[in-house]
């Protein structure tokens, strides 16, 4: 079962997959795992820890750039995505591990299947966190880590439609932040910081860290964000939560 939002985002990503991969291929296809808009190296942020020998689920893997690199480090990866066209790109990129098509609102895996569930601007952006977080808690093993990056809540409320970018002033409400219908046809999600914490706690997950990485002065991106803004305010959040 998938919701109308999941269907809408599936259509969006099926239609967008090829142009997305073409636009960002070079930026997000480097030889080491990197996070997000500015491609900050995992070796510096140290979010995931040692993945060798672990069962790893990437939620919204796209062309599986991340999972391909983690598999090379010895992880047993599964790439999961809501768009079959994105998974075609993962196959073409040489992903030699299971690629599963579905919505993260309802994961087709038994309880306690993974040591690590993660995504980099993936399912936690394009599926309702109130549905995804309990599902992730269910498929994680005890002691397992859930880590994901999203666009920051402050960046959301400083988004200016007119200039199509972040500006140094509040533009929309923080209270009630949850679901946004973008003009590009996608539906995206974000929560206030406190609501993220409550969402994790309701699913029995412990909050281990909220990283708000500041990009370096010479950071670059193909995503069109303003580096000057991101040097002053948190454009991205990386949550790390653990199942006890």
């Amino acid at each position, binding site marked *: 079962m998938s919701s109308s939002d999941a269907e809408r985002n599936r259509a969006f990503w099926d239609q967008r997959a090829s142009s997305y991969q073409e636009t960002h291929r070079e930026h997000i296809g480097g030889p080491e795992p990197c996070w997000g808009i500015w491609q900050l190296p995992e070796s510096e942020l140290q979010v995931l820890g040692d993945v060798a020998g672990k069962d790893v689920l990437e939620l919204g893997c796209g062309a599986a750039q991340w999972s391909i690199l983690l598999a090379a480090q010895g992880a047993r990866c599964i790439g999961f995505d809501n768009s079959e066209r994105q998974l075609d790109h993962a196959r073409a990129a040489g992903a030699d591990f299971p690629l599963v098509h579905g919505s993260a609102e309802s994961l087709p895996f038994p309880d306690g299947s993974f040591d690590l569930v993660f995504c980099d601007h993936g399912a936690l952006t394009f599926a309702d966190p109130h549905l995804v977080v309990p599902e992730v808690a269910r498929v994680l093993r005890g002691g397992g880590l859930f880590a994901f990056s999203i666009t920051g809540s402050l960046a959301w409320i400083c988004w200016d439609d007119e200039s199509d970018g972040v500006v140094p*002033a509040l533009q929309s*409400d*923080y209270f009630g932040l949850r679901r946004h219908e973008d003009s590009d046809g996608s539906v995206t999600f974000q929560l206030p910081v406190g609501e993220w914490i409550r969402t994790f706690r309701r699913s029995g997950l*412990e909050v281990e*860290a*909220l990283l708000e990485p*500041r990009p370096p002065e010479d950071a670059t991106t193909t995503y069109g964000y303003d580096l000057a803004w991101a040097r002053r305010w*948190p454009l991205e959040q990386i949550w790390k939560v653990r199942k006890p």
Partner: protein
Amino acid sequence: MSLSDHARHNREAWTGWAPEYAEWAPGAWTREFSWGVWRVPESELHALPDVAGKDVIELGCGTAYISAGLARLGARPVGVDITPAQLETARAMQEQFGLEFPLLEASAEDVPLPDASFDVAVSEYGASIWCDPYRWILEAARLLRPGGELVFLVNGTIFMLCAQEEEVPPGRELLRDYFGMHRFEWPDSDGIEFHLPYGEMIRLLRASGFEVENLIEIQAPEDAEPHGYAALPTPEWGRRWPAEEIWRARKTG
């Protein structure tokens, strides 16, 4: 006891503000337990654990109206404050309302009480904004028993980014950087305040031995009344963005 520079500074500032707070104290001592400038009742926010029969320390109690509310909820409070003039008001209120509990003159960064003596530590616009979090949160951890709860109210993070230098309410413009936020000094105020980014607060709580339980970002109620603090958000602002937030954490072990 050696006081930090900002503690000395803030004691002086609060000595100056104490007469004004003495005038407000009887009202604060007698109303229903509520949080912050919008006076949202605890019965709606549920920020506190059950405090009945618990040993509770209030860090930066001022006129001790929060401790008085805790005592009425059945707690055994101890109020700690660095400013003698504020504690004088607190003692006068205790006498006036016949509600006694210990009051201690000390900085919340260095409390002369033994380890593990409390079940709950609370701060509302007290140590939570006037003390250095890198000091007072460690002190709170030391004072709490294993499983003890820490509940504290601070200014909203987004408000701190928009707070004006002058004594006027915030607008929408982000006036200062988020990265590196910690110590705040204002041209029109003698006080030195502190505020950390969300992620850094979580890191500090974890490093101090706490599990993060909740962050309640308080929305101004629809019928919120103007509060009389010139530099704090208007009710209209507070309907859209958090003027205040309450962290709740549990000491592990």
